[in-house]
């Protein structure tokens, strides 16, 4: 078997890539995709800890079930986020978050 820390290292790398995307990209769709990467890095961790936990024999499902919930939240986030992007684009012809900051005082 692959030791646990390797999964965590890959998840950390994926999370950092996502953070870079969120910080450096200007396009809202690209930022949303980077957020999806970060959520998936979290999911890798959850499943890895669930699998390697020594109490796995009494059927602790926390990590497993939690991953399913994260998946649902990620999907809801993508759906609403993209809908907002489409609407903002329709009204302002732009998908750059900084350019759509009318609500900021």
């Amino acid at each position: 078997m692959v030791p646990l820390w390797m999964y965590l290292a890959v998840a950390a790398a994926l999370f950092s890539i996502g953070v870079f995307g969120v910080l450096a990209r200007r396009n809202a769709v690209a930022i949303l995709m980077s957020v999806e990467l970060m959520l998936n890095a979290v999911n890798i961790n959850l499943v890895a800890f669930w699998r390697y936990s020594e109490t796995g024999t009494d059927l602790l499902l926390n990590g497993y079930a939690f991953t399913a919930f994260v998946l649902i939240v990620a999907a809801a986030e993508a759906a609403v986020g993209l809908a907002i992007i489409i609407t903002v684009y329709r009204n302002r012809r732009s998908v750059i978050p900084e350019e759509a900051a009318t609500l900021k005082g």
Partner: protein
Amino acid sequence: MELNAISIGFVVFSIFTLGGGVGVVTTRNLFQGTIWLMVSLFGVAGYFVLLSAPFLAAVQILVYIGAIAILITFAVMLTRSVARIKERYIRILPSFIASLALFLILLLGVTIPIFGAHSPGSIPEYVASTRDLGAALVDENGYVVPFLLASVLLTAAMIGAIFIARDENA
């Protein structure tokens, strides 16, 4: 790490996951970016298989490659001038340094404490099946409240997104 099917799979899926991730953040073309995202998430699905959670792997493919990829593509086409403009990256160097620092912190903070712990021999043999998950989801002592809340969340997301995205003049 000896050479066997699992370690080969791990290396292959790591390349998929991280390569796809790098592709997502570096590709300027948003459609290609979506494909890279799918490559990366396919790698994550592979991890789930290696971690004996094939149900999550199938669901990952179903939800991301089957639905979210399509949704992102539709959104990209609807905001079409985006793909044409030459997007400039902002704050490349600070972002890079920040994410690299985060990676190192995560590596040190998370990996070192458990390095060597959980030796492969101590991994539980029996893992929960999909049936166990199904039973736990609707068990009063299990996840029945989050289960129903997830339904409420999805309903709210769907109603909200339709409300936002619909053409008012239509």
